[in-house]
């Protein structure tokens, strides 16, 4: 539906939510993007960026949990002796 790419906030400028901007790094490519929809974002946070706006802050704990859940699901499979 929409391309949204994870990037890390390097700097933040502006106080008014409508002027709130940050420079986001996408693995070596940077762009100034709007932080109006992620006003609580801090430098170092990872955000998903769509059409020049941060649309959500990526939650590190949930991200880790997702990967841990996999290990659990796959661990169950292994414990049951199923082939993989």
């Amino acid at each position, binding site marked *: *539906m*929409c*391309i*949204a790419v*994870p990037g*890390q906030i390097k700097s933040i400028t502006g106080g008014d*939510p*409508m002027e709130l901007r940050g420079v986001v790094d*996408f*693995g070596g490519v940077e*762009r100034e*993007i*709007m932080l*109006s*929809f*992620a*006003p609580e974002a801090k430098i170092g946070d*990872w955000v*998903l960026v*769509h*059409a*020049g*706006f941060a*649309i*959500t802050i*990526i*939650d*590190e704990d*949930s*991200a880790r*949990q*997702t*990967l841990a*859940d*996999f290990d659990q*699901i*796959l661990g*169950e*499979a292994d414990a049951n002796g*199923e*082939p*993989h």
Partner: protein
Amino acid sequence: MKYIDEYRDADAVGRLADRLATEVTRPWTIMEICGGQTHAIVRFGIDELLPDGVTLVHGPGCPVCVTSAATIDAALDLAARPDVIFCSFGDMLRVPGSKMDLLTIRAGGGDVRTVYSPMDAVGIAQDNPEKKVVFFAIGFETTAPTTAMAVYYAARENIGNFSLLVSHVLVIPAMEAILSSPESSINGFLAAGHVCTVTGYNAYHAVAEKYRTPIVVTGFEPLDLMRGIYACVRQLESGKYEVDNQYARAVRPEGNIPALNTIDRVFEICDREWRGLGTIPHSGLKLKNEYAGHDAELIFNVKPVISAESSVCISGRILQGAAKPPQCPAFGKQCTPEHPLGATMVSSEGACAAYYRYRPSHNRKE
């Protein structure tokens, strides 16, 4: 890249597919509503890893595909005007209206510009006060807040030469249109993770309940997709129909409140014609009256036109998940990415384009 590479672990995806195979007892049909997911599924061959019983069908979640030919014709008219700079996301430029596309208008002298963000179009308006700058506001709830902010900002800063040609669409009315269609064979939904970053998923509970269909909020990487499918099948196998969030790193139940507030401030709900699907009530967004000064339809007095669509093309049925691209007689013949006949071939995200681009054999069994 962080948050991408670790979700492309081929070994884990394969093992999860194997695990899924051990739990499937009956055939299930699952629709991924989002075109970006269709793209990723076909790009990574996720559907080919699935056990025989699980079939994915591709929904109408490509905003470029579903923008009506009439709206595109209006865009072409505006873009051809000498006093207009017409700004658009890149993928909209190739989409034909009833006769031609924006690339052809540009070749004919129209000032058509590709921008990365709607805010860039506002900047172009500030830099070109003698011109009227129109931004083609397409997209679902993910994109709507970005165009809403552009117009809100333009209004606040008195940038009077900036306007939007609005063709925003909403996900839930489309899902309901598909679920209530007699042709529907959908057992479960993968909800589009990026739309849900904005909308949240509280509103999905009523849909899951009403149609007794599980809805799983799903991300875009191979491991996310496999996980969404796995969670959906698990529900189906145990007779559940709940809303489940498998994209928790990005999606909160309530969504993005500042983004939703910005949409509400600027837009109101309207009926919208979808290319290939027809008009769906309450399925679109249009500018509120107080933003009439930034509404390109009003400023340029755009007349509604009925545009004819190809009679061969079955994109409407493909968008509803009732048919797959290779079943269309025009697929790969009269209809290719260079010369698309219908909605689903026009964007590289469309189901037909994804099949055309990525499938080694277009005649493989479906």
